């Protein structure tokens, strides 16, 4: 008890002046960031361009919605969804073994296996998706196929992590029961582990699909199929009514997919 006054004083020093230290650091970071950026180079036409963009969004190019050429908005949105869907399915399949690799189990000593698995997943997650897309374009040529492969590989980083967390938090009661009735390892996996974990896996996969839809819209900008290619072309040729209708299409598609997937996920729980 004798020590306590001294302790309070010590603590209050930090309480009183500790924030100054952090404030100084934050200040330095912001000064450094601001002086480093060359924000002055705004082109003179900025305001007129914004005006034409806004007018383009309010006067969309309706004729582009569907014209049967296969290069119209509806066809390309379908293509975008196909890229996202297929990519997500592929990544969900690849993620399962990765997840079991990265999931910590109580019996494991030093966690070498799980830590290395987690590290690999982080690497995959951090590797930029569009660079992957460009690499796959070299392998299979420009188009949706490269997009599918890019989404399929990149999504493993996040899905594998989510899956492995689901495995770590799983209630192992059902597994214990199947062991106790004399089930072999395969039976334990197929009759207890899988049915317990599958709904969560599906739910995470749907969630990841929502994200994949967003990335599939931009993969086209590097030539990997979907709505991104005509979008970038329209921006570069300053065809703002075309940009407007594509933006509208993307917004509707994303909102629709989000609510559909959200509804499915709720039904699953």
């Amino acid at each position, binding site marked *: 008890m004798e020590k306590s006054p001294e302790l309070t004083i010590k603590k209050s020093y930090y309480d009183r002046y500790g924030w100054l230290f952090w404030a100084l650091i934050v200040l330095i970071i912001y000064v450094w960031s601001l002086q480093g950026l060359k924000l002055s180079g705004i082109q003179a036409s900025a305001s007129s361009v914004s005006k034409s963009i806004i007018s383009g969004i309010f006067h969309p190019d309706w004729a582009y919605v569907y014209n049967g050429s296969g290069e119209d908005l509806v066809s390309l949105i379908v293509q975008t969804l196909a890229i996202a869907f297929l990519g997500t399915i592929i990544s969900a399949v690849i993620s399962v073994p990765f997840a079991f690799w990265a999931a910590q189990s109580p019996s494991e000593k030093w966690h070498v296996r799980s830590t290395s698995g987690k590290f690999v997943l982080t690497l995959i997650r951090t590797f930029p998706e569009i660079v992957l897309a460009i690499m796959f374009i070299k392998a299979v040529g420009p188009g949706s196929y490269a997009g599918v492969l890019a989404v399929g590989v990149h999504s493993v980083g996040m899905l594998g992590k989510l899956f492995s967390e689901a495995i770590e938090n799983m209630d192992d*009661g059902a597994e214990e*029961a199947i*062991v*106790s*009735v*004399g089930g*072999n390892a395969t039976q334990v996996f*197929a009759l207890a582990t899988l*049915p317990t974990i599958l709904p969560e896996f599906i739910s995470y996969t749907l969630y990841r699909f929502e994200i994949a839809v967003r990335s599939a819209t931009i993969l086209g900008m590097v030539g990997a199929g979907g709505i991104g290619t005509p979008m970038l072309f329209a921006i570069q040729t300053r065809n703002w009514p075309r940009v407007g209708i594509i933006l509208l299409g993307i917004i509707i598609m994303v909102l629709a997919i989000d609510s559909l997937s959200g509804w499915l996920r709720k039904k699953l729980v």
Partner: protein
Amino acid sequence: MKAQPIIEFQNVNKVYDNGTVGLKAINLKVNPGEFLVVVGLSGAGKSTLMRTINQMHRPSSGKVLVDGVEVATLKGTALRELRRKVGMIFQNFNLVKRSSVEHNVLSGKISYYPTWKSILGLYSKADKRKAAQALDRVNLLEKIYMRADQLSGGQQQRVAIARTLMQDPKIILADEPIASLDPLTTTAVMNDLQKLNQEDGITVIVNLHSVPLALKYADRIVGMRAGQLVYDEPIDQVTEEDLNQIYQPM
């Protein structure tokens, strides 16, 4: 002369990997047809004791004999044959929550099926009938096609009992079977266990926290404390003070 004990512990010790002592020099004989209740504080080693019987845990030293067979060395088919004979009931029911009640009950039989048949759910007509009968015995036949997680806790525990019935077990191990249940369903579950003991002659070992329930259902009470057996009396010798002694903090 007494019959051969169905379960026998010979100087069994269990030390976990992290150094915790689970069991210390356990010597215990359980006779066929007994209703044995194990009492003691949480962490006294009751669950560990139970799990060494069907080799969910392996003892560090000593022998556990079931039907005269040493279980610690069993592997593969022999181990699964042992586990067939020993039904187990858990505190948290341990059903596959999203599967139907029927599938949960049938899973008690999987060790008799080739792996692929059990995975595809291809059970024989006879076993399906047996599952229905098992559910009828615990008064849950009308729930047979429902999903397990749609049932109340007490009903889920009775589904778990029906699952062990599929095994035609000689022994039922019940690890705190009523710890997550309310008083009313507690009685239903304990009565089911008593019925199996009296009508089918199954040896039942139950871990319990509740002294009144132990006194009501047991043929014999065993007390555990810090991994050791500290009490072992047939029910007509047991007094409530003895049991309260076991629950005294150390």
